[in-house]
């Protein structure tokens, strides 16, 4: 490992942290300019002026905004996300289990969709402009064009109602046996897979086709390699950077954009939690979830950047 590459990676991480900090400011400011008074919403319309003032004092709402921001940020850095207004619960402990549920669902959706998308992309390049290529592209585009709520209900209708293979409501609980849990997430994971598949597949196809124009592909052909070996050994390694980028973008979507799917399947993840608390105007929860989503998004993109740097032999092995 050489120093220029470490420097590049360090730069990316530092940039990511800076970005996360900026996002935290945005989230805080955004929730502050929303109309409504937190003390009022806790105590309700019938509260007396005196009790409102007392609560404001207790919550520190009379402090200037920047002091409240740093208190909030300091809390997050020490693992204290605050308390939910609606339930009085500690947000960190409420999120803990749900974040894990969301990651579990996203993980299995990714395990299925990423290899499938890349494999289909390679296959489409192998039979480019032929029947297989058009079939793959057509099906993938069709699945992306359908909105996820429609796909979700379609899956529920056939797999849960008609054939009764998988449950239509994805109830999970602590200590659930692994296979049971997998059965419960089968439908939402399928819905997510269908949503992200086409984008990754099309980008893999495009990135590899681009590389297929290179002179070294002809060299491989003239060595007697078979078309699929050429794509796998000679084209794919040079297409990693763009492919990783689009994969990470979709992984981020699997975690952050899961809201609709979680609601359809009543899956107890972050998305459900967020939607519930947006409806209740529970600002501390929205702030905390927003920040977590932003952190996930930024982290995955940093990973994509670093992977792209590491995939470049010129950076890995300088002259």
């Amino acid at each position, binding site marked *: 490992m050489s120093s220029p590459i470490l420097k590049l990676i360090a730069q990316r991480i530092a940039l990511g942290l800076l970005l996360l900090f900026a996002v935290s400011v945005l989230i805080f400011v955004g929730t502050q300019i929303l109309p409504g008074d937190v003390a009022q919403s806790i105590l309700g319309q019938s509260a007396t002026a005196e009790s409102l003032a007392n609560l404001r004092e207790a919550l520190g709402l009379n402090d200037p905004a920047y002091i409240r921001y740093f208190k909030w940020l300091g809390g997050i850095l020490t693992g204290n996300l605050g308390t939910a207004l609606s339930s009085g619960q500690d947000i960190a402990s409420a999120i803990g289990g749900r974040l894990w549920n969301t990651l579990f669902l996203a993980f299995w959706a990714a395990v299925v969709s990423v290899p499938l998308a890349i494999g289909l992309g390679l296959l489409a390049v192998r039979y480019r402009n032929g029947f297989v290529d058009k079939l793959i592209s057509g099906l993938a585009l069709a699945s992306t064009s359908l909105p996820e709520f429609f796909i979700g209900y379609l899956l529920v209708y056939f797999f849960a109602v008609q054939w009764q293979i998988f449950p239509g409501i994805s109830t999970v609980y602590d200590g659930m046996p692994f296979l049971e849990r997998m059965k419960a997430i089968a439908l939402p994971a399928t819905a997510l897979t269908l949503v992200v598949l086409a984008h990754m597949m099309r980008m893999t196809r495009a990135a590899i086709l681009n590389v297929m124009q290179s002179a070294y592909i002809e060299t491989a052909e*003239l060595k*007697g390699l078979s078309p699929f070996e050429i794509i796998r050994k000679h084209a794919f390694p040079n297409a990693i950077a763009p492919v990783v980028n689009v994969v990470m973008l979709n992984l981020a979507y699997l975690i952050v954009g899961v809201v609709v799917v979680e609601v359809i399947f009543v899956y107890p993840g972050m998305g459900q939690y967020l939607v519930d608390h947006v409806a209740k105007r529970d600002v501390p929860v929205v702030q905390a979830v927003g920040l977590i989503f932003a952190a996930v998004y930024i982290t995955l993109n940093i990973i994509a950047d670093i992977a792209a740097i590491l995939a470049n*032999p010129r950076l890995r092995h300088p002259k």
Partner: protein
Amino acid sequence: MAKAQAATHKPEMLLDIRDLRIEARVYPPDEAPKTITLVHDVSLTLKRGKVLGLIGESGAGKSTIGLSSMAFGRGGVKISGGQVLLNGRDILTLGPAGVRKVRGREVCYVAQSAAAAFNPAHKLMDQVVEAALLHGIATRAEAEKRAVALFKKLSLPNPETIGNRYPHQVSGGQLQRVMTATALCSEPDLIVFDEPTTALDVTTQIDVLAAIKDAIRDTHVAALYISHDLAVVAQVADEIVVLRNGRLVERGDTHQIIKLPQQDYTRALVAVHEIDHTEKQPSPSPMLSVKNVTAAYGGGVVKVLKNVSVDLHPGQTLAVVGESGSGKSTLARAITGLLPPEQGSISFDGRTLSNRLADRPKEDLRQLQMIYQMADVAMNPRQTVRTIIGRPLEFYFGMRGKERDQRVAELLDKIEMGTGFADRYPAELSGGQKQRVCIARSLAAKPKLIICDEVTSALDPLVANGILKLLLDLQQEEKVAYLFITHDLATVKSIADAIAVMYRGEVVRYGPKSQVLEPPFDAYTDLLLSSVPEMEQGWLETAIQGRRMESAGN
């Protein structure tokens, strides 16, 4: 041992191409697609262990024929007729799987640009042994051992460890040798060398050529050696086939082709194309004077010009010669202001030029024009010749309409192209015609100085010769001065009045042509002069022996 035994069972005739016809589908603009014939019923034979040179200008079909011996058509080209008998069987009838067994095993390929032909993502060794492993010719350990032995034979530096490097960590000349090792590693019967030294500097070319020649001799492999440079082919080939526009012009042994050519076209190729040019005497006051210029890239980190001083007199030609990386194009960039010098000054026509391009008045820009190596990328493909040549007329002189068209016609006449070309697009012109249009465009500004950056390097020798004659005629008529950047010494002899030899950013030899090309030489000029291939069998060995210094190894 095993190879020698196997060879006795194989027929003496290794390659027998019979009535080969190759076609391609083309899609010309504004016309219906049509099928054109690239190779017209060409037949040729090659015996085991011999080297056959394929020679011709671009479009002659040399590479297309060479690749047909691997049953390969580049870019949608289709082999539509004839037979390619390799080791006694027609490989065109083998089908995809059968052809794959031949490629990389019986026939291997060495490409023109090894830098592009190696996969940047894999180590050299993995790519060198790939075909041998794929075809089960050797185990990995055996193949690597053989590769290292080949690296040694091809005199690559650090033969034991160079395989662990990536393509970008190795120079162009070295890569070309590694590619030759790749081809030799699977011990094929035939190697197709497709212009293997054309992209290299003249001083590097000679090393690579000698390495290839030794390797062919020691491994008894047969070869098709494709090149546009007859002098190069004459060094390695036993026999030569001359091709033109996809047809066979003449074939014979090397001595016969270069000494007793039978066909007019071959005679034209063999003839020495030096133009008789009388050197002009320097005038009392130079028009362009570059004084102690130092320039660098990367904010002063990489010094590419070191204290360079040259003068250019009105209506004369200063040739700047050197290999790639010597700083000759950077000198042009410094003079035009594209790369402002860090130190030194440039005076032009009695006044000092601003260092930065942005600070120069329009009049300075007009008087100093440029022509580039790649004519086709120097023109907007969506503009007609009339628009391209008319643009400087509008920009510098405000000419419009009829007046402008009149002048465009005059300029087209000057470059020996009729007004019929005015409405053509660059894609409809040949390489030489494109370069002529670029010359007309620079002349349109009525400049006092034209910088010509390798303007003939991408052209076939006969076409290049025509361009040089045109440039000399125009110099007579227009009294324009040329700063002529080139790596080709034959060109220099033809047109220069003064010469500056550059090496690693410095001018190592400078003066009137007669002085610079007159012994005693400094070591570098000697190397440069002795590296130019001569149309003489055995020149290569003599030249290698007589060398006083190594090339820069670019």
